[in-house]
């Protein structure tokens, strides 16, 4: 793992994207202390342009956009991390079973994942969320249920490769039960590509949540970047600040996680190890 980290931090893309992600986390955690403005506080100054009082202006209900952006960073990171975590757990489990057991189980699970991959994810997500109602947890579950196949496929390939290595045979000869070999030997050595993919899934999850919120599928009691953009849509002719900043935030965040995923994949690639 350490050489991988070293490779990661000699790669300029890795450094920059990692720094952006750190900054974002900092904004989400320390933002409310550094800029102690209530993102939900209404005021009569509706759609006010950026000024000293409101550095990024206010929205249609007079709420401070900068405070909203900080709140949005929290929401986006929360959704991204939870969805990626859930997706990776489901994906690795399914992939591990498919790759390790093989045979009919493998064929059935791969067919199932193919089925999920064919469905237009975004439209299905919109349909499900409109049916069950909005809510962060629900959105996270929907994202996880719809994105696990990518992870499962990657994990399966890697598990198949690792389980053919000599040391796994050695473990089997020592009489260690199959499931212990799987979680003790195979999964730890096969998980790297799934971790790199997790960063890309975070990017997808953040984008998906933003798109859902943009279409009005967010609960009314949260402020997120996509929601600000949804409000912005009605004021494109008058309040440019509503759209510019929150969209830029989504763009930079998603780009950072995408680049980080690429850099991680490069750094964790075993072929670079020698």
């Amino acid at each position, binding site marked *: 793992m350490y050489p991988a980290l070293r490779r990661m931090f000699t790669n300029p893309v890795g450094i920059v994207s990692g720094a952006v992600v750190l900054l974002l986390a900092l904004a989400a955690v320390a933002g409310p202390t550094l800029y102690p403005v209530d993102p939900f506080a209404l005021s009569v100054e509706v759609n006010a342009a950026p000024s000293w009082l409101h550095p990024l202006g206010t929205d249609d209900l007079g709420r401070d956009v900068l405070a909203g952006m900080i709140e949005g960073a929290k929401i986006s990171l929360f959704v991204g991390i939870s969805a990626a975590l859930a997706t990776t757990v489901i994906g690795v489990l399914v992939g591990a079973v498919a790759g390790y057991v093989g045979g009919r189980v493998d064929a059935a699970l791969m067919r199932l994942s193919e089925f999920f991959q064919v469905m237009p994810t975004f439209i299905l997500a919109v349909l499900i969320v409109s049916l069950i109602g909005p809510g962060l947890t629900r959105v996270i579950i929907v994202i996880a249920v719809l994105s696990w196949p990518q992870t499962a496929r990657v994990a399966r390939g890697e598990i198949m490769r690792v389980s053919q290595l000599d040391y796994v045979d050695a473990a089997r000869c020592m009489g260690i039960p199959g499931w212990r070999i799987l979680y003790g030997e195979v999964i730890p050595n096969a998980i790297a590509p799934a971790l790199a993919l997790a960063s890309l899934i975070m990017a997808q999850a953040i984008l998906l949540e933003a798109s859902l919120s943009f279409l009005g599928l967010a609960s009314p009691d949260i402020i997120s970047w996509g929601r600000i953009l949804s409000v912005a849509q009605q004021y494109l002719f008058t309040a440019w600040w509503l759209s510019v900043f929150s969209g830029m935030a*989504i763009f930079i965040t*998603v780009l950072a996680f995408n680049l980080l995923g690429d850099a991680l994949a490069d750094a964790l690639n075993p072929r670079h190890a020698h």
Partner: protein
Amino acid sequence: MRYYIAQRLFWSVVIVFGIVVVNFVLTRIVPGDPTTALVGEFPVPQAYIDQIRHDFGLDQSIPAQLYYYLVHVAQGDLGFSFVGRQNVLPLILRRAGVTLILMLPSLTLASIIGVLIAVRAARRAGSSLNTFLTALSLAGASVPVFWLAQMLVMLFAVRLGWLPAQGMVSVRANYTGLAYFLDLLRHLILPSFCITIFYLAIVVRVARTSMLEMLHQDFVLTARAKGLSENQVVVRHVLRNALIPVITVIGYNFGYSLTGAILTETVFAWPGIGGLFVSSIHYQDFPVLSGIFLLAATAVVAANFITDILYAVVDPRVRVATLKPA
């Protein structure tokens, strides 16, 4: 080949069937009794409720309901839009045509430009142009398409006033003939630019990788050894083979581009599927939403099927390899 087509066709039918079942299950997980939605929250006689439950087959068992649903879908009956006061299928199909007016030029443009860019980039591997293009395609994949659309509206419609911000035609003008066409074209520029960028990102990425891969193949070395010029090598040998993954990525990403179109339409008030989709979200018009999902998913399966066949036609290795289960 015939076996291959039959195999893919069978699998496509299975998937479509699965999608219909998923759709059925989804509409059944809605909390609450559907009859409440139908009669409203008024006190009505129990006999009336029973009548409605019977009319809609709600008094039957779940498998029986699924059976009726399947029969209806097979007959092209996707339900009734209570908001639009008409059947779902014709409603969606009319809007789908309008979406295609937007999608087809964008996809064609993105494919052509994407391949041209990739050819240029691959010939100068490691150059700064290459790095720039890679960054550009990553940026294209990360930008929220609806935000890009908003930026375009604010710049070209609001600030500069060059192009119309919304709609498909000028409502007040009543153009006909050529004038109508030109007016449509003016409205098409911004949204199709948006979708083109959205799509270009994937095409460039795949085309560049596959060009680079092909450049290192033995047959390219042979072609060079024969004394062909660099242009001949690239166009006749590399590009031809590198196009195969590009075709597949275009085909397999149909659903993705539909998503892009839906989100773009929302910003530009383009009267296609996207507009219908969003208004159905607001009015909670579930039959339309699930109809759009069903149709979109079926279109994706069809696009995948066609791509599978095309892929096998241009690359004989595929149809041989897939005879055995992978």
